[in-house]
């Protein structure tokens, strides 16, 4: 079960492989509880296009949940 959803919008400015990176990303931290109640944290990163797709899916879910 989803307990908490945290997000962060970051901008990677520079790295050892590319001085001029200029790469925006969305980082997400999910807190999930399993059947026994044990809570786990899961984090992952998305590029902006990935995030936009992620957001679109959520919008779809929200629209369907309203109708159920």
């Amino acid at each position, binding site marked *: *079960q989803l307990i908490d959803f945290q997000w962060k919008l970051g901008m990677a400015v520079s790295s050892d*492989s590319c001085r001029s*990176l200029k790469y925006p990303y969305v980082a997400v931290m999910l807190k999930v509880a399993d059947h026994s109640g044990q809570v786990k944290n899961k*984090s992952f990163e998305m590029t902006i296009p990935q995030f936009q797709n*992620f957001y679109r899916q959520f919008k779809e879910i929200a629209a369907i*949940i309203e109708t159920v």
Partner: protein
Amino acid sequence: MAGELESCKPLSGLLSGLAQDAFYGHPGITEELLRSQLYPDVPIEEFRPFQAKMRGILKSIASADMDFNQLEAFLTAQTKKQGGITSDQAAVISKFWKSHKTKIRESLMNQSRWDSGLRGLSWRVDGKSQSRHSAEIHTPVAIMELEIGKSGQMGCLRGSQETKPKQTWKQFLDVSPLC
């Protein structure tokens, strides 16, 4: 022999090979492989500094993520340098960067992502008529399966959100001025 190195046909191939090695992490692209495939008549002592020069130029361009103005200025400066490049070679490098810039940049961005990425997302909405934990009838549930992993790794996260789905979704949707 210098004439061989100045010829532009194999230069495009050399830049591709260098990019494979420097940006895409393709294994096995050795100096000797590049020399024997592209400049077979050039001795290794001459080829080595030449490919190092080209590699350095390519890395500078990629590291600065040069736009076309910056690229022109940079390459012009390289043609004026002692031991620099010819204007024909500059043209080949320019053409190469213009067609590969996006892919190389994407590869560099991937190299800078060390956290797990979202590899896949699927979901389902159930209209439950009865729940073990709650007496509420007809509680909709959204079940999502997220495939999270670093490249080469895969892990699945399945979560469901019951009873208070609207709050979480609303909080999420209010967040997204980017879209």
